[in-house]
């Protein structure tokens, strides 16, 4: 099955970053499997997926740090195949920041400009502007060891941006920061990227990071591109079971499809055409209603027994045993509900548009 996903909203000619059949092989192992992607100029794209899915390898291939086994990388119309890293016009932000410990903040940031032979006056101006951009004015003479994690991260960002690269590549830059700093930096990076209008690729394993920051998200799994789309698209219209389960929370029910429908807990549920055999039925936990619901549209309804009640504060979660499988249901707490006890019988229902059905491995 080929991975022919393209970025929505752009003909091939509009794409600033183009990956065509990008592949990386280590012996028999396919780390990246024929990835195709078109990214328009000025967009911030996330490469999202679990560890080992190939997102970092793909980024490294774009940067030229890892040579590709097959495929082409095109940036701004130029084919970068075979071009060594130091001749590609990219800004790289590493997970560990990789600030040169023997150079001051100033010289770190100015390093890329030095390599490009920028004249002294312009050099000083651009470094000063970059330092101001990341709110580190006054710290120019310090060494990386004297900076906090968040400050080091900003120096890394400034260093990558000051050279005005064609593309900004970030490899999980926020993983080493604490939660609060992470949120702060998320917004800052997004603001700067938008302001400069720079095309950027952001690798992360954190789906909330990808959803909140980026114009488009590329979901990867086992080296393959599962789906590309805007955050809402991925959330509401996942195209594979993996994407459905990875982006947001899902309750998953195993069933078997036969002749266009499946039977589950006494209910007959329709199944998309073409699916036969084992299937995954997935529903968002907060879109399952508890108790009989009176509504215009026909709803699927099943009965089960409460297995577990979990009070999470904002949310009340019920794990319900339905025909031997566990269905999680989430309700927003209102403060006046009476908690259902384990063992209590309950009926669950959901609208036909809230359910996703995918073929499953046998």
């Amino acid at each position, binding site marked *: 099955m080929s991975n022919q996903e393209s970025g929505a909203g752009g003909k091939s000619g509009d794409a600033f970053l183009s990956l065509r059949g990008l592949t990386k092989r280590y012996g028999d192992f396919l780390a990246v499997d024929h990835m195709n992607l078109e990214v328009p100029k000025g967009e911030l794209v996330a490469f999202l997926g679990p560890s080992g899915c190939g997102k970092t390898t793909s980024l490294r291939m774009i940067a030229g*740090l*890892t040579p590709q086994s097959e495929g082409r990388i095109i940036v701004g119309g130029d084919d970068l195949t075979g071009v060594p890293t130091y001749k590609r016009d990219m800004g790289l932000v590493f997970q560990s920041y990789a600030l040169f410990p023997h150079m001051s903040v100033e010289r770190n940031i100015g390093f890329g400009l030095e390599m490009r032979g920028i004249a002294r006056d312009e050099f000083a101006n651009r470094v000063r502007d970059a330092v101001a951009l990341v709110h580190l004015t006054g710290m120019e003479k310090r060494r990386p060891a004297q900076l906090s994690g968040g400050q080091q991260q900003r120096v890394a960002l400034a260093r990558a941006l000051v050279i005005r690269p064609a593309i900004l590549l970030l490899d999980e830059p926020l993983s080493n920061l604490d939660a609060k700093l992470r949120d702060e930096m998320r917004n800052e990076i997004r603001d700067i990227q938008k302001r400069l209008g720079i095309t950027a690729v952001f690798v992360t394993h954190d789906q909330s990071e990808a959803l909140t920051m980026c114009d488009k998200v590329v979901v990867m799994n086992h080296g393959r591109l599962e789906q590309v789309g805007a955050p809402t698209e991925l959330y509401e219209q996942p195209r594979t079971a993996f994407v459905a389960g990875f982006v947001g929370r899902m309750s998953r029910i195993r069933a078997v499809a036969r002749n266009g429908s499946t039977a589950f807990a006494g209910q007959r549920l329709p199944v998309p055409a073409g699916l036969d055999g084992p299937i995954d039925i997935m529903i968002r936990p907060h879109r399952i209603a508890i108790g009989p619901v009176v509504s215009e549209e026909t709803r699927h309804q099943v009965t089960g027994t409460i297995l577990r009640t979990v009070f999470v504060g904002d949310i009340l979660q019920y794990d319900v045993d339905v025909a031997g499988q566990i269905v999680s249901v989430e309700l927003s707490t209102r403060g006046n509900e009476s908690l259902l006890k384990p063992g209590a019988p309950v009926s669950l229902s959901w609208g036909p548009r809230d359910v996703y059905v995918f073929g499953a491995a046998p």
Partner: protein
Amino acid sequence: MTATPADGDDQPRRLPLVVVLLLPIALVNALGFVVPTLNLLRMSFFEAQGTGAMQEVFTLATWQKVFTDSFYAELILNSISTSLLITVLTLLCSYPIALYLHRSSGLWRSVLLVLVIAPLLTSAVVRTYGWIVILFENGLINNALAAVGIGRVRMIFNKTGVTIGLTEILMPYMILALMAGFGKLDARIEEAAASLGASPMRVFRHIVLPLTLPGIALGSLLCFVLAVSSFITPKLLGGGRVFLLATEIYDQAIVTLNWPVASALSILILLIFGTALLLYTRALNAAT
């Protein structure tokens, strides 16, 4: 960035660069080590005729001489037995220091460690000279003995002097090897044994000693091998009167100019090395 597997497919492109970068050291190694050593083997199959001259004809005469002449048999036996004695003595002297260091900690330990390693950084000539000052007729020990009325003892320019000197000189190596092998020795194990009723002597015999056996084996191998091939100390402390393999090699090479014999003796040292290593590996495998 998270670690990625080695980029194996880069190699065909980078090979010329690798070769260029490795060429100098490979050349030094080949011309200064491999070729000379192989040539040594080759040389042992020649025979020296008279003084200095040598016929480059393949012959077993030299090897025959080395294996049948009683002088060489005595030489080899002497070297091995003396080295074994030195190894045992070094072990006995080093063990207390190694154990003490292992049990100490902090700044004191670092200072002592430096004192143990420091002799290694000084020339063998310096240390041997120190022993001459201590052992010779008008030296430290003899003058002290004379002062108390005991007569002077001859302990230099003989095997005794060589043994004493070499034992001390090899101690740092033994101490470091022992300490490396002491890894498994934990105070808590000894405490457990004591709580079960074992006296300190018994704890040592049944717990400490067995656990430190790997270190003892390694140190002994190292020490033996160094003793057998040691030259400076036997030559200076032996005063030309103690005949060991290393001193004989030097004499044959520089004085007698009998390179085939010198080469054969060198190969013999290497064979002794190999045998010792083999025995060590066998003992190690038998233990595990």
